[in-house]
Every structure is written in C-alpha cells, then in structure tokens.
C-alpha cells in the first residue's frame, strides 16, 4: 500500500526522441486516471534525446504539477529498458508500476487494466486474445508477429499470450525483484520478465489491447530486429 493507504500508479515512460508523441501520451494518461479517480504519477525517463523531448517534458511538468509529472534524464550507453526501469523505480512513489512505450502504440483504457486487477501480481496487455488487435499492419507484419509468437509459445511455454507487447502493470516489489533477476536487453528483457515471473510463481492477468501503429515517427522494427529477436529467444530458451 502507498503511504496514504490507497493505491497509487506510477507510470514509467522511457523516451527517446518522443517530442511529438509525449504530450499526447501524457494527456491521455492524465485524462484516463482522472476519469477513473486513481492516484497516479508519470515518470519520464529520457535518454538524452536531441529533439527537445526533455523540454516538452518540463513544460508538461509545469502544466500538470511536479507531483504528477516527473522528468528524469539518464544519459548512458547502457540505456536499455532495464536500466530505464531501475532508474525510474527509484523515483516512483506508487505501489503499482505501469510500464508502457511512449510511442502511442498503446492506446489502452486503463479502466480495463484496473478491472483485471483480480489481485494479479502482473497485468499484461495482449494483442492476440479477446478483442485485442492491431491497426495499420500489412499481412507480412502480421505473419511475422504471429509466427514469432508461435515459436515463442512452443519453446518457452510462458503462460502469457503476448510477450513482446510492452504495456504492463506490476506490483512495485514484483518489478524490483524481476529487474534484479533479468539480464537481457531491449524487448527481450520484456520477454524474460514474464518467463521469470512465471518461474517465481507470480500471477499474471491479461487484458486485450488495441495496438494502433505509430502516428508520428518511425516504428523500431526491421530485419535486424528479427535476427536479434531469434537470438534473444534462443538465449532465453537455453538459460531460463
């Protein structure tokens, strides 16, 4: 429980060159939280973006108050999701941590996340179940996604339908434990967290999410990504 006895949600947003998207993401989050009446804070962890992301974040801090928006910079060649989360958690005052990308791909109503909170340790968004889905994906991208997920399910049997989505809610102590144990980089880190969570006996709930493709900027997916995905998958296969 947070200090005042209620639940508080700390949203961690690792950013790199998200100047266009950041205000929109923050606005959506603030609106959703205010509608649901939950106590929240948004922690923006920026990797030294050259496009002025930090400046926008500071403006947002002034508009919404620095108890609600917190901007932290880390400039380090080791900036990967793992280090961003560790850094972000140090400043988080909530008892639940929400992790999402700041690229507007995750258009989610946090209501359903909260609802799914049947006392789960982790709630994960899934594009593959229920009325979850994607928008603006061509056949090739869908095929790669489904194919990769199939291989992942066969090899890792993770107990969650979508491992590479990165909209998740964790109990703070669960996230702390997992970030200690997980060693991968980037989105393989996200996969590793779910696999290890299952091994440690944490409960995982799923919520269908609509993954709307990037409105601004470029989505970080290419041929290299596929190769590194397979490498990461095989590493997890051999080490977890």
């Amino acid at each position, binding site marked *: 429980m947070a200090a005042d006895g209620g639940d508080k949600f700390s949203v961690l947003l690792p950013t790199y060159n998200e100047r266009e998207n950041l*205000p*929109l993401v923050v*606005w*959506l989050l603030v609106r959703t939280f205010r509608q649901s009446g939950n106590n929240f804070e948004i922690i923006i962890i920026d990797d030294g973006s050259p496009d002025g992301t930090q400046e*926008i974040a500071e*403006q*947002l801090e002034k*508009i919404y108050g620095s108890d609600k928006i917190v901007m932290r910079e880390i400039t380090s060649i080791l900036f990967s999701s793992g280090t961003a989360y560790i850094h972000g958690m140090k400043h988080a005052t909530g008892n639940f941590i929400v992790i999402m990308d700041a690229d*507007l791909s995750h*258009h989610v109503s946090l209501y359903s996340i909260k609802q799914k909170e049947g006392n789960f340790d982790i709630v994960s968004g899934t594009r*593959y179940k229920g*009325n*979850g*889905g*994607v*928008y*603006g*994906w061509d*056949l090739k991208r*869908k*095929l790669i*996604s*489904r*194919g990769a*997920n*199939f291989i992942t399910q*066969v*090899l*890792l*049997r993770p107990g969650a339908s979508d491992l590479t989505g990165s909209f998740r809610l964790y109990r703070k102590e669960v996230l702390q434990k997992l970030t200690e144990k997980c060693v991968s980089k980037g989105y393989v880190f996200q996969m590793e967290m779910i696999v290890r969570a299952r091994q440690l006996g944490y409960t995982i709930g799923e919520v269908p999410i*609509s*993954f*709307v493709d990037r*409105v601004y900027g470029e989505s970080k997916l290419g041929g290299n990504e596929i190769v590194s995905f397979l490498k990461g998958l095989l590493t*997890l*296969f*051999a*080490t*977890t």
Partner: protein
Amino acid sequence: MTKLGQWLCGLALLGSAWAALALAPPGLRLPAPYRQALLPLPVYLLVAFGCYSLATVGYRLATFNDCEEAAAELQEHISAAREDLRRRGLRF
C-alpha cells in the same frame, strides 16, 4: 531445469524408447510389422508438427483483429489533446 534441458531430456527419453523398440537389438524384439511401423515414426511426427504449426499460424493470422474503431478514437483524442494542451500553454 532450463527449457532446453527439458527438451533434451524429453527427446532423450523418447529417442531411446524409439531406438529400443524400432531398431530392436535382439532380445527385445517386437513382431516385424510393429517394428516397421515404428521406424519412420519420428519423421511422421515431425511432419505432423510442421502441418500443425502451419495450420495454427495460418488460423491466427486470419483471425488477427484489426482495430478500426480504436484507431479512429485515437485520432479524435489526438485532436482533443492538441487543443487542450495549446490552451494550457504548451508550445509544441
């Protein structure tokens, strides 16, 4: 045990059972028809798994939802957000 470890154990178990029964060192002989049926079993299973994989991925590909509504809703939210933030003094 790692997943790799589990797979290796499982394969070793099934592999040795198959080898024992199908390749049949004398003393453990099943009748010939059974041995002949067992011999190509690993290949059959592999092919069956391949078919299952194709069918499953194909089905999942076909039923992959497209979120038209969510996209439209998002566009509305973006306009509203830009409006509101501009009013509050955000310089984009």
